């Protein structure tokens, strides 16, 4: 797999991801052997010339298979000066100085064309080092200029250069009180690109991450858990990772997203009795090409030190995955319509636990008529650091609709007044039609979800079967 971090948000999350990935592999890989699992995300580079140790399979120096892109230097520089500096190669970075000014057009059109060649070249080099490239991850935010604009440009580039490799995008959507005024423009313009060029999108909303972080703080501070709480198990924690500096406010939230990506790829990296690869996720959760937005939820948010987990607690984990509080966007999948659902379980959980919980939860969930048993499941034996088991739920559910509708409304509020439009139209290649096409793409998407919602709760008539002449 090849993650691309684009923009400030993307790189900050990306940094947490690499840190936690190293921590996870260190916990599992005690012998220091460069194994299959590690190779999916890291290259083993011998910095001395003889190459002996590489031949023996030992870990010499791990380099992340990644590309870090940002149009201003601050964040990337910090990463390169920080504890992870050895994990990245200068050849994997693309930076500029002045930033994109929170302007999608600058990111997409201006920097896009300027850096196209450089990006393609570095991409090819990095890809060459991979035995088998299964999927690209793009991590970015939608509201700004670089992540949103250049990020979606890279997306298109990936489709052109490597059409067969899956493109997963983790997108952080702006909240209503976002401090960037033009975030609705940037987001909608980016949405059109996601609609057309991404295989799967995992939308994330900062509000949800914030709520989760708060919830964890409350639980810790209320003293209910006391000393039995395992610090490393917090889905927000960096304990045990390379980062020792005091955490900045977004760090905890970014850790959650990093954990999401770790869990998503865990079955591809580690063994289990029912493997679930990324291409399987795309296959099972995307019934129609444009409906590829997946709502994710992670549980547990923390574990207690009690190692003997009674199955009641295990069952609680499954229930939590479907509760509002654990979703990474502001949505309530339980009250909307499921097109498909995937459960990836890590740790000492068996198929009978999985089945028991699916049976238990099924009656309270609404699945579309042609996919009443629309469950995709995976079992990975290796749990995340600090946990005995964990669950990642991915839902293709119409509850994403409100997020998109709000986005559309905020967009129209600005667009009707033509506010800030000139900043965009100044950029070469940018026209008003870009805006109208983008909003129309979003409207179509919302309409598709509406159509599906309309079928919810209606009478179910199965289509009649083929008749065979006897």
């Amino acid at each position: 797999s090849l993650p691309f971090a684009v923009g400030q948000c993307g790189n900050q999350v990306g940094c947490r991801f690499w840190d936690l990935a190293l921590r996870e592999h260190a916990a599992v890989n005690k012998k220091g052997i460069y194994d299959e699992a590690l190779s999916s995300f890291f290259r083993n580079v011998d910095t001395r010339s003889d190459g002996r140790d590489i031949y023996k399979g030992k870990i010499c120096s791990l380099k992340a298979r990644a590309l870090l892109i940002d149009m201003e230097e601050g964040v990337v520089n910090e990463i390169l000066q920080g504890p992870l500096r050895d994990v990245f190669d200068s050849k994997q970075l693309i930076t500029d100085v002045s930033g994109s000014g929170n302007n999608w057009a600058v990111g997409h059109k201006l920097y896009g064309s300027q850096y196209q060649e450089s990006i393609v070249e570095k991409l090819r080099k990095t890809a060459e080092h991979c035995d088998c490239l299964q999927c690209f991850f793009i991590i970015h935010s939608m509201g700004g200029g670089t992540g949103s604009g250049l990020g979606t440009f890279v997306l298109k580039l990936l489709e052109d250069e490597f059409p067969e490799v899956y493109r997963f995008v983790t997108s952080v959507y702006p909240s209503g009180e976002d401090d960037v005024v033009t975030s609705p423009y940037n987001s909608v313009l980016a949405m059109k690109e996601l609609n057309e060029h991404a295989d799967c999108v995992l939308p994330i909303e900062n509000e949800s991450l914030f709520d989760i972080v708060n919830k964890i703080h409350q639980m810790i501070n209320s003293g209910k858990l006391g000393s039995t709480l395992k610090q490393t198990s917090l889905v927000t924690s960096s304990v045990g990772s390379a980062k020792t500096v005091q955490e900045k406010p977004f760090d905890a939230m970014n850790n959650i997203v990093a954990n999401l990506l770790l869990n998503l790829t865990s079955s591809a990296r580690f063994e289990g009795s029912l493997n679930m690869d990324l291409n399987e996720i795309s296959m099972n959760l995307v019934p129609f090409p444009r409906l590829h937005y997946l709502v994710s939820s992670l549980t547990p948010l923390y574990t207690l030190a009690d190692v003997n987990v009674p199955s009641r607690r295990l069952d609680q984990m499954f229930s939590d995955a479907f509760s509002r509080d654990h979703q990474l966007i502001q949505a309530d999948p339980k009250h909307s319509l499921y097109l498909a659902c995937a459960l990836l379980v890590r740790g000492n959980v068996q198929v009978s636990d999985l089945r028991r919980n699916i049976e238990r939860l099924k009656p309270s969930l609404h699945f579309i008529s042609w996919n009443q048993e629309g469950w995709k499941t995976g079992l990975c034996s290796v749990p995340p650091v600090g946990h005995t088991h964990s669950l990642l739920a991915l839902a293709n559910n119409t509850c994403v609709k409100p997020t998109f509708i709000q986005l559309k409304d905020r967009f129209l509020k600005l667009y009707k007044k033509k506010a800030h439009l000139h900043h965009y139209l100044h950029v070469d290649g940018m026209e008003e039609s870009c805006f109208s096409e983008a909003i129309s793409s979003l409207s179509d998407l919302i309409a598709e979800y509406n159509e599906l919602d309309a079928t919810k709760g209606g009478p179910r008539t199965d289509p009649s079967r083929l008749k065979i002449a006897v």
Partner: protein
Amino acid sequence: MSIVTVQLGQCGNQIGHEVFSAICGDARGTHGLCSRKESESYRDASKERFFCEEESEVPVARAVLVDMEPKVISQTLATAARSGYWKYDDRSHFCQKQGSGNNWANGYSVHGPRHKEAIMNLVQKEAEKCDRLGGFFTIMSMAGGTGSGLGAFVTQCLRDAFPTSFILNHVIWPYGTGEVIVQNYNSVLTLSHLYQSSDALLVHENDVIHKICAQLMNIKQISFRDVNRVIAHQLGSVLQPTYTAGGSHYSRNPLGDLTETLVPHPEYKMLGLRNIPQMPENSLAYSTFSWPGLIKHLRQMLIANAKMEEGIDWQVQPPRLGPSIPSGRSTNKPLNFNTSIANLVVLRGKDTHSVDLGSFRDPSLYTSWLNPQDAFNAWKTPRAFNKYEKSASLVSNSQFLLKPLDNVVGKAWNMFASKAYIHQYTKFGIEEEDFLDSFTALEQVISSYTIL
């Protein structure tokens, strides 16, 4: 004669490993309850069928392992070698890195042709190692992408390359409530294609085995490993050496015998498997069974389509046949009665020579095409299997799988009507027309089994 096993996909490889383990463990075992000569004969026959003796002394399974991602195969090879009792040939496997993504079209249309040569080379090598090739046994699931799609393609290749060999496909029917969302599509495509190249499809349903684990084996937290072990036990109980009627040596052509006795007509290839008794290993020492009891239960399991020996519906009885009722097409068949085309019972252990199987020869159990003598066969051996003092297995070509098949086709059709997920298949070259052909083929099979 030797059988070459082809293990396809995660499921195929996980199960395959358990099968060889069970067979090796049983052949090596000392609780045969028979004479030493008999035991040695049994062990030699079993070894010839499934293993190759090499200079290293540890038997090498006659198997080709195929998967589109590496983790499962590495695990399988390692676990087998660790046992110290048997292993796989280190070179007899083929894997790639990227998997099939649960996409039948990817397995069948992309991976299949791309890797055909490499895979068939491995098969050829294994086939050549056999003094006499008795046929192929493939293990796969229908739900995923590799076992199902690539499995269907490989079966076709086997048929083309070995037109006179027997091919028995062991197919795993997935849990009804999703392991994979597109499992019904994958199943429909797999079954319709296998029907064309395979000689017989031997089916195990995950739901059924799961129940056996829960209710008979008393396992609390059931894992796939538990399920696979039960499956391996059931398969072993059929595939291990036996004497077919009138023979004085262990039969040397198990796959041929199986398909010849059970598949008289190419339209009817779906075989179900039942095994009795099943219990946790630590209860074995305390249980005794009588043959009449076992046979009675097994017969009722057949008639009433019971999945295991608990919860059998004893009310179901075969129809009364008389001279005035036209045989076969009687519409007075009792409800829930499972009509058979052909049955095979395998008896292993103490006193098998004296078992009365007359109740299985009852013509009312069968359709009319075959003489009851031909419709029923029994294989026996005094050598006990896998620590069970007495065990009986039934392989049945009957309406056992009619309902599951109908369910799967129904669900797939429902999804197909809304065109959901179809773009994922057309992307790799399987068009709507191909789906329709598969649906048609299976509706035909359903119809054929229904009117028995």
